[in-house]
């Protein structure tokens, strides 16, 4: 039964199983540093394959960290803890005031702090391979036997890089696929040679220090001197501290600069100009923006003349619209075109757009299934719709379906109950005369039959009524 130097969790586990199985008292064992425990007196030899000792999860976790501590007494303390757990004190770790628990908590804390500092203060340097591939190497001197315990953190964070971590108690190597734990290493020479980023980091570090707040005590509490040797930026510390008082004095003594009252006109004018000044400019912004709904290849813009008498607002582009980049070209769009014709509205003379500018879908194999936008998503797109209609200035806005009505009114509208004329508000009293009717895709979903035909006729009648509203009584 051998315990290796450093943090030998497996070895300790094996030894512990044997000791517990043989009922050996902690006081009868001497753990010699990293080496195997030796037993006094005539204790029986430990069984080689003793059964696992069931331990509460927090105790197991505590053992995992404490074995990393440098304290030679760690194994003995853990053995005592386990003995008490086995004797029935299963919630022993809640006894924060118990001297043994307290002592182990301190060891645990020290190891955690060391882990944290290694995560924080380790610096990689880029080394130049002959083939020009990126590779990173770091040298670090941890306080305890924590090198392996830090590996998951570095692998997770730098999975896509090739790197090596060297320390006096072990080393790690990651090649983007697998981790190799290696032996102790010597400090490599000239790591930060030719690394302009290392130089840049020092410049950054110096510049981000505020001399008016100098407080080296607070700094040392968090970044003790022992770490400085391996932190390239730490070289700047003494000079920064030395020059701080003089820098502050100079700032305070320097007479306050007479405000050079440069005229703010430019600033104010620039601010006033920032809103898009035309529909084309707004459309450029919409095209450049990322979808606020999942899916979508690109935004589908409105179509039709500015100044159109009627603007028709649908829900959102569908599969076909998304591919062609034009509104109302799919089956529902074709139905709309026919209905408009029947109602005596020329499609090309109206402005057609959608409340949501992107196709929201969920992929099912090769198929892209339409998904309705949520109220929140409709709200995100509302600014664009309002701006758009502001440029088009229609005399009447027709909302097709509940989503469009939601976007135009800001509240949920029951289309079948409230269909007909309605006032659409923008902000305050501003707004448009509006009309609410069903979305043509609703008509497509109705089972064929009398009801469906009647619904289509009602839809055309709605559109005709809308036309009447812009043309006036005639």
């Amino acid at each position: 039964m051998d315990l290796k130097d450093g943090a030998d969790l497996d070895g300790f586990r094996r030894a512990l199983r044997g000791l517990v199985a043989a009922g050996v008292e902690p006081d009868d064992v001497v753990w010699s540093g990293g080496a195997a425990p030796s037993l006094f007196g005539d204790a029986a030899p430990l069984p080689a394959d003793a059964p696992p000792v069931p331990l509460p999860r927090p105790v197991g976790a505590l053992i995992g960290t404490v074995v990393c501590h440098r304290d030679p007494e760690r194994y003995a303390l853990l053995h005592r803890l386990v003995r008490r757990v086995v004797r029935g004190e299963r919630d022993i770790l809640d006894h924060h005031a118990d001297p043994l628990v307290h002592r182990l908590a301190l060891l645990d804390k020290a190891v955690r702090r060391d882990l944290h500092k290694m995560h924080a203060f380790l610096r990689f340097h880029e080394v130049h391979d002959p083939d020009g591939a990126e590779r990173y190497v770091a040298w670090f001197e941890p306080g305890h036997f924590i090198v392996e315990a830090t590996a998951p953190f570095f692998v997770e964070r730098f999975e896509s890089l090739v790197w090596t971590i060297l320390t006096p108690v072990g080393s790690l190597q990651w090649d983007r696929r697998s981790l190799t734990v290696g032996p102790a290493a010597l400090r490599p020479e000239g790591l930060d040679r030719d690394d302009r980023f290392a130089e840049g980091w020092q410049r950054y570090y110096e510049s981000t220090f505020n001399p008016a707040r100098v407080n080296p005590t607070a700094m040392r509490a968090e970044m003790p001197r022992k770490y400085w040797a391996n932190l390239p930026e730490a070289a700047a510390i003494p000079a920064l501290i030395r020059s701080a008082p003089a820098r502050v004095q100079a700032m305070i003594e320097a007479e306050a600069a007479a405000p050079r009252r440069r005229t703010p006109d430019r600033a104010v004018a620039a601010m006033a100009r920032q809103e898009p000044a035309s529909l084309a400019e707004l459309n450029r912004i919409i095209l450049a923006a990322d979808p606020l709904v999942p899916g979508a290849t690109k935004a589908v813009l409105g179509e039709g003349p500015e100044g159109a008498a009627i603007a028709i607002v649908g829900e959102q582009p569908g599969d076909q619209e998304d591919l062609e980049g034009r509104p109302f070209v799919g089956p529902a769009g074709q139905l709309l075109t026919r209905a408009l014709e029947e109602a005596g509205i020329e499609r090309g003379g109206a402005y057609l757009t959608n409340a949501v500018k992107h196709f929201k879908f969920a992929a099912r194999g090769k198929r892209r299934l339409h998904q309705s936008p949520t109220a929140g998503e409709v709200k995100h797109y509302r600014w664009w719709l309002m701006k758009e209609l502001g440029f088009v200035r229609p005399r009447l806005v027709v909302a097709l379906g509940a989503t469009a009505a939601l976007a135009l009114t800001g509240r949920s509208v029951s289309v079948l109950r409230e269909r007909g004329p309605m006032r659409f508000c923008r902000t305050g009293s501003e707004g448009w005369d509006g009309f609410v009717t069903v979305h043509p895709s609703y008509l497509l979903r109705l089972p064929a039959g009398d009801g469906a035909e009647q619904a289509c006729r009602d839809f055309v009648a709605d559109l005709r009524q809308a036309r009447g509203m812009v043309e006036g009584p005639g």
Partner: protein
Amino acid sequence: MDDALLDKLGILADSAKYDASCASSGAKRRTGGPDGLGSTTGAGICHAYTPDGRCVSLLKILLTNYCLFDCAYCINRRSSNVRRARFSVDEVVRLTLGFYKRNCIEGLFLSSGIVRSPDYTMEQLMLVARTLRRDHGFAGYIHLKTIPEASPWLIEQAGLWADRLSINLELASDRSLKEFAPEKDGGAIKAVMGQIGERILEAKEEKRRFSPAGQSTQMIVGADASTDLSVLETSDTLYRRYGLRRVYYSAFSPIPEASSALPAKPPPLQRENRLYQADWLLRYYGFTVEEIAAGGEGGMLDLGIDPKLAWALKNRGRFPVDVNSADREMLLRVPGLGARAVDKIVEARRHTTLRLEDVARLSSGLKRARAFLIAADHHPGGLTDRTDLRQRLVAPPKQLSLF
């Protein structure tokens, strides 16, 4: 990195250093995976500390320190003679990735002076975040300072990529804002806070990403005449009304090229500390603004002692409390006992009756707590009511050690 970029880095880090809101905490766990880069761990890591004792966790820089505005407390204001520089979007991306790969930072905190127009500036900030995330699979932390005057849709886009958005309120009252930051509009700032707050809530409900680490703000203290009470009242409102994650307090710091509208001397840094302590009491210890302010005088916190001790000294009638029986709320009000210590006490006393030495193992602040506590073997007796209690508890001021 060539010399020109190095030079810009110096200038644009220097002009960004007065912003205190640079923590990298609060993001959900996330990793870049085999093709991306980086991770966020939830808590954030301080990778270095500068001699001012503050941590370096993010690359904190400005996109540019040119600015159209003229805020008196700001080194980058239009009328300042400071050296100017400007990064391109790609330069910021390169710097962030370069430092991140060297394990120097947790991510990026990007702010900017307002150039050309608020929308243009906001768009550049958003583009940096988008390029990092989308083109480089960057999974580190990104905090963007939003430009309040920018259009809502740009802020919306920024929230898709950033972990945290913030807008600096800077001054607690609208009146100070008018005086010191003539082009800024307190109403607009709060409107954007409201907008962001609403979006964050919605996104949570819809399980989408939008500034998942919340929003924060910074207030400068000591540049105007605002009292601590009014600063804390403002914070309290921000926490409650806009769901802000953090309010940062930054003691006004003398800047080179200071405007003559400002006091030449800095306020004591201690004031900033006290505000942070008070903020903590507000958020985690169940204190109200009035209670905290009542510990001080005339709306200002006591600079000599922390606000919890100040409150306790003025409310001695409520002490001493018994560690073995007091409820959690009252234990939290005992000077020297932090929330963690209180939780341990509550847990430990289910198993045993606590004596003073037990409490000492659970809390490092026992020295201060003694006078306010009863334990199995301890009663402070008349100590709680002694008139010199304050003197006994306050260590004589220590000289700063400069080496």
